[in-house]
């Protein structure tokens, strides 16, 4: 898990921008209007979100349109998957342990 993902999301305005982008791609102007944040502030936050790989920008006609990138979200999923795999391995390990206890008791 990238700490930068969490840091980028940790600022309330940036989180609101991400929340807004969940409804669909938007331009700086649209975000500024919806969130009632000044445009230069929105641009600044979008830059941080872009650096963290959360938001990507695409030119559409003469506008720059921002949208969420799936990659950081996949990282979160992968991180949880690793937790799940750990538990799978651990429960298999418990089986081997119980078998070894039983074998030890049988040979006594």
């Amino acid at each position, binding site marked *: 898990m990238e700490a930068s993902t969490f840091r980028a999301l940790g600022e309330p305005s940036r989180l609101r921008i991400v929340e807004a982008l969940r409804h669909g791609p938007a331009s700086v102007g649209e975000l500024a209007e919806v969130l009632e944040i000044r445009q230069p502030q929105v641009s600044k936050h979008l830059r941080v979100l872009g650096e963290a790989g959360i938001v990507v920008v695409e030119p559409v006609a003469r506008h720059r349109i921002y949208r969420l990138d799936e990659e950081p979200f996949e990282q979160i999923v992968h991180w949880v998957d690793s937790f799940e795999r750990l538990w799978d391995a651990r429960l298999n390990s418990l089986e081997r342990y119980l*078998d070894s206890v039983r074998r030890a008791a049988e040979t006594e």
Partner: protein
Amino acid sequence: MITQLFKKKKDLNFERTYEAPVEAVWQAWTQAEQLREWWGPENTTIVECEIDPRVGGQIRVVMEAGEGMGKYAGTRWPLAGTISHIEENARLTYDARSWTEGKEETTTIHHVNDLTLTEEGGVTVLKLNISITSIGSEAKMAAFGMKWGYKQQLDTLAEFLSKGI
């Protein structure tokens, strides 16, 4: 593919059957000297292990990565928990935190673990539910909330993200 990823739950459920009496499985979980024998996956060692099996009792387990884990060698992953419910040979519930030592702020995961054991004809059925409640700070909560929190919103997000690919 993205849609599938986003449909994952924050609840992990495991069910296993062990050819052992329920008492043996219970002891493996609740006695530190037994727990340390199986808790760590391959290439890890358990460097600390304490469990106080009573309501309010503490669980503390520290795993350390061995040489076989390459760049992670020497990394320690502590778990600290408090038992909230205990019924001998039947059920163990504990709230816990797990993290990577030295990176507590960014790696802490909070989880509630509910273990139930039932014995039928000499085999023991183990059910384990792990509910991930948060991953630490508010920011991480937010990240998780977006991933899992509100299903309807998530589906919208998944749908949206899948369009762009």
